[in-house]
């Protein structure tokens, strides 16, 4: 799994890559909770290079989202590959997370 945080047009973006499963999600959890420790108003996650995510990875983002909601922060997903978007669609996770086609669309909302 790759996890990289960069600034994009003034917002914090997490660039994720690789497989997010029961082995890598504890690392994702540490990195994600560390990133939201200083309560960013908006955090965008780019899934462009993610090849797989299982329920333990999704639960990690649910935990991050619940943390951010306590201070009205927004967790946004973007650039989700089709295979993963299929999982998000049947799981109805679009009712849970804000999902956008690309970073600029996420930034504009």
């Amino acid at each position, binding site marked *: 799994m790759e996890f990289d945080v960069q600034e994009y047009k003034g917002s914090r973006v997490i660039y994720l890559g690789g497989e997010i*499963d*029961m082995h890598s*999600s504890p690392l994702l*959890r540490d990195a994600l909770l560390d990133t939201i420790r200083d309560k960013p108003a908006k955090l965008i996650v780019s899934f462009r290079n993610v090849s*797989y995510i*299982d*329920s*333990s990875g*999704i*639960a*990690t*983002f*649910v*935990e*991050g*989202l*619940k943390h951010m909601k306590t201070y009205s922060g927004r967790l946004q997903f973007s650039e989700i590959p089709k295979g993963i978007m299929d999982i998000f669609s*049947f*799981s*109805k*996770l679009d*009712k*849970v997370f804000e999902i956008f086609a690309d970073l600029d669309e996420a930034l504009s909302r």
Partner: protein
Amino acid sequence: MKEEKLITVPEEHLGSLEKRLADLRMLMDVSSIISSTLDFNELVSLVMEKAKEVMHAEACSILIMNRKTGKLEFEVALGTDDTQSEILTKHVTLNPGEGIAGWVAQSSEPVLVSDAARDCRFFGQADSLTGFTTRGMIAVPLIGRSGLIGVAEILNPIEKSCFSEYDLEIFQSLCRQVAVAMENAIFHKESIEREKLSQELELAATIQKSFLPELAVSVRGRISLSGITFPAKHVSGDLYDFVEPVPGKAGMIIGDISGKGVSAALFMAKAISEFRYLMIGIDDPGIVLGRLNRQLSNAPRGMFLTAVYAIADTQSGRVKVAVAGHPPFLWITKNGVQVMHPDAGPPIGIIDTEFPVTEHALEPGDRLLMLTDGVFDAKNSEGARLGFDEITEFVAGHRHAQQLPDMLAEFVNNFAGGADRADDLTVSELRYLA
């Protein structure tokens, strides 16, 4: 008669020989201590007590490398008083390269220090905290088959100003034996812990199975329900259950807790218990999932449950279905297989929401096949995943088979081959008998 010859040996040389003999005895004693116990703590204390005595040192200590933190931690400190020893074991850790012990750990080289105060590697903080004054010392790496275990030290020689090269040689001989013994004790301890954990998990698996239906098949009127589950580890985050919410109705739930292992299994036990209480007397699967959602809303670490709950009329075959973020289910008729994506809510335990209900009229012989993602996400030894389309194709080709859930589970297991199952796998079936 053999003639006896008298040899004159200088007293100094005799003393030296006696000392070497005593040291040899000590090494043999240590060897005997080492073979007498596999208890790690006992072993370390006994050996170091002996070392302190024979090396004529004021104090000695062993630092163990914590592989998780990468730091050296005091395991035992003898010769200092109890308070000093507690300070060292509880409050002092060293990074590789830090202090003389850290230098020894990093370089894997032994070191003889005549005057600690003048040695730039010396870490004075331990002395400041304990009030002990280190003058001279020997520090030796403890190296086992799997690398560095830790560092052993003896401090402040008694009745002489500094340790000698000979002392270093003896302490090294002792530490070589200690390292092997410590590694054996660590392996022994880990093997006991693994065995204990394995027994605990087996017991947990037995308890967890008691949460699932006692019989794999349940028939109510013209509705037959069946299920099969295989955990990825000993215990599973998947669940299924057959219930009678109201007279004349048969209910079937299948669910999947996020994550795996013990935490998922405990949450599964909570979820299935709550479900059994909440479904009583309610003929609407959406209302039940809504109540379950509120009940599980404070799940730790973002944990959630995906589920399908179906309630079938045991005579007419009409089925009401509510879905919470669960993968599609398959509707098998005599003509083919349809992948069902009914209107659904998100997984349970994340947000306050409602769960829509869809109604389906089954024909006699029709079946609804529900599964968890461990079925289509199964991975083989080459790393390839099975996929939902392949599952649908298999089911279509075997749609007339009576034991379809078992056949499907076998198909997935065969695909995975020898690869470790990454996810729990559950298949359940609701059949409207012809």
